[in-house]
């Protein structure tokens, strides 16, 4: 007993168990991936992370215990005001880590590993867009990563708090990202899958270049139901394409959840816009399915001779503000469709590249509305 007490006292005085984060660049073991696949416990060096304990840095800060208000009216949901969107806007997270003999930070538990892996993935993604497409940190802005958020709603007089799983998401207007609680059904957790996070960040890129960070631009201007469905599909298809631009692997989604909804998003897909229109049951993902046609077209164009992912990605980004003006003009139309965006992308290319783009776009979008819309695309 005296030995135990004295050991406890020594431990108390020396804070035994706590590791001091080494000075200099932050190096940690995370789960990450590249075009070749996933790597467990890869030692990486963080560029933007400044505070390991609270997962806070230049590009983003992580927040836990947030609760979204599902009952907030639409006007509040698109306001971009956290006070109107959240019941509880979350609090600092506190990772548990230790430093090994190589001065590398190691997570002590699942959540700490997930937090560091998520942050590292977003560092890689942000850096990709800055390096290749001239985005700036100011343009992207520091964002929140909500870790394991919950959703609250009222059913009669009772308040229900719901834990959503099997997802990650981007909240337009707010400009923040959500990594939802991990399900046992996920093989590699969504929050550790850079392809999934790259897709969600693709929504942020779309939000910046198309909607100027305003959810009201999409949802608050009286768009027709058809226009909103088409825009959702375009947004999803472009987000998948942007994820591929970043990671250059079309199958990584299925490493998290190998279900039909994800298998249907492996490009090139087996359908065109016309065959999808004729038989919607060939794909299970609703508007995602047409988005995957767009992704397939851009993917094929990127891999074509004398083309590159960088060229197509640049054309897409330059086309987005112009497509935004099409949206403002035609959003109430019942015939709003993908051809507005496809024409804008083709117009960012010249000569043979434009001809090739038009040929590929017409091949994938072979339904009557898009064929008519693409008639002048040569």
């Amino acid at each position, binding site marked *: 007993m005296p030995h135990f007490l004295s050991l*406890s006292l020594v*431990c*108390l005085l020396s804070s*035994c*168990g706590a590791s001091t984060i080494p000075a200099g660049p932050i190096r940690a073991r995370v789960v990450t991936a590249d075009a070749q696949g996933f790597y467990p416990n890869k030692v990486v060096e963080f560029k933007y992370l400044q505070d390991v304990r609270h997962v806070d840095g230049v590009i983003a800060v992580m927040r836990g215990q947030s609760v979204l208000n599902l009952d907030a009216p639409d006007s509040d949901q698109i306001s971009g005001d956290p006070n109107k969107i959240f019941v509880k806007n979350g*609090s600092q997270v506190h990772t548990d880590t230790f430093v090994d003999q190589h001065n590398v930070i190691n997570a002590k538990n699942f959540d700490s590993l997930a937090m560091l892996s998520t942050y590292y993935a977003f560092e890689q993604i942000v850096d990709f867009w800055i390096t290749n497409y001239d985005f700036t940190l100011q343009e992207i802005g520091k964002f929140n990563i909500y870790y394991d958020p919950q959703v609250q709603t009222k059913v009669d007089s009772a308040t229900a708090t719901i834990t959503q799983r099997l997802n990650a998401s981007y909240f337009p207007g707010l400009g923040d990202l959500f990594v939802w609680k*991990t399900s046992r059904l996920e*093989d590699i957790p969504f929050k550790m899958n850079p392809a999934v996070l790259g897709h969600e960040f693709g929504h942020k890129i779309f939000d910046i270049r198309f909607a100027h960070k305003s959810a009201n631009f999409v949802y608050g201007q009286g768009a027709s139901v058809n226009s909103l469905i088409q825009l959702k599909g375009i947004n999803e298809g472009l987000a998948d394409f942007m994820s591929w631009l970043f990671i250059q692997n079309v199958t990584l989604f299925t490493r998290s959840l190998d279900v039909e909804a994800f298998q249907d998003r492996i490009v090139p897909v087996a359908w065109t816009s016309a065959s999808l229109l004729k038989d919607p049951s060939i794909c299970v993902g609703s508007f995602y399915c047409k988005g995957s046609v767009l992704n397939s077209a851009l993917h094929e164009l990127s891999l074509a001779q004398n083309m590159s992912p960088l060229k197509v990605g640049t054309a897409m980004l330059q086309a987005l503000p112009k497509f935004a003006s099409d949206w403002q003009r035609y959003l109430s139309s019942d015939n709003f469709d993908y051809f507005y965006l496809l024409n804008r992308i083709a117009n960012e290319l010249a000569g043979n590249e434009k001809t090739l783009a038009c040929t590929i776009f017409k091949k994938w979008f072979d339904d009557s509305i898009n064929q008519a819309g693409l008639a002048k695309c040569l």
Partner: protein
Amino acid sequence: MFIKRLTIFCFLLSASFAQAEIMSEQPQQSVRVYINSAHLETPSGDRAQHYGASLLYGAPVPDFYGFEHFTSFGLLMNLNPDTTKKSGEVNILEHFYSLSAYLRFDFVKLFRFSALVGPGLLLARTNYNVLNTVATHTEISTLLSGGLAIDYAITEQWEFGWLFQVQYRLAYQKLDWYNGLGVSFNF
């Protein structure tokens, strides 16, 4: 759900012994065993629930530095293995085993109400299985623990009771709480 059912069962059991034996007001040497449910603070501030066991050994201290209210001291051990599968290919199980020394103050009025407080050591063993790469990390750190127990005499030697503990992990600044039901044997 299991704990709720166990609670109902145990309360019914204790009610059947309503012809209470006289509970000794004098501290006795005792061993207590509890089935507990640990609610461990996670990095996000949420709580992870682990089931486990608590073991207590107590011995009387008739005159603890002249402060008569500390009626006994002892050791408290919590065993809380992590059995929760996190995902298909990334699993990190963090098992907690703690040993605390405590001082206990008792107050008897039909039930025995006990408050206990003391420092302890936590052995945290982390088993990593990340994309089929397996590793283990073991670490000892310090904690402060406090608790409240309510016991009811079934016989002169056997008691049935509830133990609520809080433990503060000093190194990681995390507050856990444990809720347990169990029996004690007084020597």
